[in-house]
């Protein structure tokens, strides 16, 4: 495990050093952006709509019982933008795009395509890892920015139509405006940026160390997704502590 962590840190450092080559790799970045961003948009919409709905459904009736229905918008709104949107979308992207990254790079590794690049003095980090890292670091925060209002809409809709909650759109969004500010949204976007870097580097590293044919590729994909999710949840705790400290 410690060897893997060390290798991931070195790979991240090598990727940072390759950043000046980003402009030359712009076509690959755009391709990856399309794959990660556009390809996930519909799924992100559905996920965030239902996250908002479920959150309203779980908390709304309890708040109403205690005569606190007026705080529903703020509570749900803040939960979505600070926690649920960045974490759940990161898990979704780890499963969807992280797995694709490790499978693609792993298959290139197994079928000697990466060796072929090396014989031509083409650095696999700048050719394969850098475009994917840039794309996911741009795509995930953008998706989160998009998912936050969709989640709010889902929560507001359920709050309005559920007879146990019956909080109107106006009341819901009035409280949300009072409680949630740009800093809260930035909080969620910042978290998602860090999660994106973690997913990208873990998935690319797992692809690069793939061994042993199709079974090895499958093993790499599983490890990439599981390790990314574990890393997201651990990072979430420390980032939350850090952001609470910074916002004091």
């Amino acid at each position: 495990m410690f060897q893997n962590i060390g290798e991931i840190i070195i790979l991240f450092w090598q990727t940072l050093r390759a950043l000046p080559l980003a402009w030359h790799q712009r076509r690959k970045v755009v391709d990856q952006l399309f794959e990660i961003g556009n390809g996930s948009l519909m799924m992100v919409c559905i996920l965030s709509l239902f996250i908002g709905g479920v959150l309203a459904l779980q908390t709304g009736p309890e708040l109403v019982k205690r005569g606190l229905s007026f705080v529903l918008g703020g509570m749900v709104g803040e939960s979505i933008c600070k926690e649920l949107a960045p974490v759940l979308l990161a898990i979704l992207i780890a499963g969807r795009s992280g797995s694709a990254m490790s499978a693609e790079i792993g298959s290139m590794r197994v079928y000697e395509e990466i060796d072929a690049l090396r014989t031509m003095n083409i650095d696999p980090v700048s050719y394969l890892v850098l475009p994917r890292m840039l794309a996911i670091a741009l795509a995930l925060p953008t998706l989160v920015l998009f998912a936050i209002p969709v989640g709010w809409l889902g929560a507001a809709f359920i709050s309005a139509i559920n007879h146990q909650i019956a909080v109107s759109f106006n009341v819901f969004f009035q409280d949300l405006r009072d409680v949630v500010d740009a800093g809260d949204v930035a909080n969620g976007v910042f978290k998602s940026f860090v999660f994106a870097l973690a997913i990208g580097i873990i998935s690319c590293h797992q692809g690069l160390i793939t061994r042993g044919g199709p079974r090895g590729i499958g093993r790499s994909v599983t490890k990439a997704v599981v390790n990314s999710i574990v890393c997201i949840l651990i990072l979430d705790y420390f980032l939350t502590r850090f952001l609470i400290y910074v916002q004091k």
Partner: protein
Amino acid sequence: MNPPAQATPNVSVEVRDLHKSFHGQEVLKGINLKTAPGEIFVIMGPSGSGKSVLLKHIIGLVEPDSGEILIQGESIASPDIRDKYRMAMVFQSAALLTSLSVGENVGIYLSEHRLYPPEEIARIVAAKLEVVGLKGEEERMPNELSGGMQKRVAIARALVIDPQLILFDEPTSELDPLMAVVVGEEILRLKNFTQATSIVVTHDRALAFGIADRMAMISEGEILLVGAPEEFKDNADPRIHDFIYAELPAPHAAAKRTDPIPPKL
């Protein structure tokens, strides 16, 4: 690896006392051999004998545990020396990038190193594809090509750097006999066309005896013999004799050609 140049002086390769182990198992046990500039040197041996590992040492993909590899008398342990010579490798699997078209695969070295403008790269790619008989195939994807065509694209990709040394790893594996002959002829034609030194690793006896100027036989990580192809045919070492003359037992053998070693291509 340096940018392509017009002049293509070929190079000599020398391997000195090369040792390599993987997970405690010694794969190369003190390999010594030397190739002359411009020759086709075939390294022959059974599967798992360490041929491909040796080739990967020469191209710099694997670091030796001990021993050294010299090109034109200079050790390639230093990346500067390794980059001084133009070396290319044609992989067993062809190793074409499946997400790129044939043209992009062939031109990848030039485009990634930004050596020429796109129009010039397209012209060079077309010329190299013509050399391997694949003129006009730039837009096709690797998965649309046969195994033999993929190998020829890989050869065209190697030619783009105007190599002084070309390494072929099992160039006829997974090919039918007719396509294997085509690839063998291609290697011979490249020798005349580029004057580059070629090192070919194979367990295909027909290919080895068909194209080799000199040969080496490797078994269980050791070189058994280095010499002209004729020296192998008459060698009494049972490991060499058995490899070269291995045949199916009768009655199947009756259906096979009597001489397992074809005349030189």
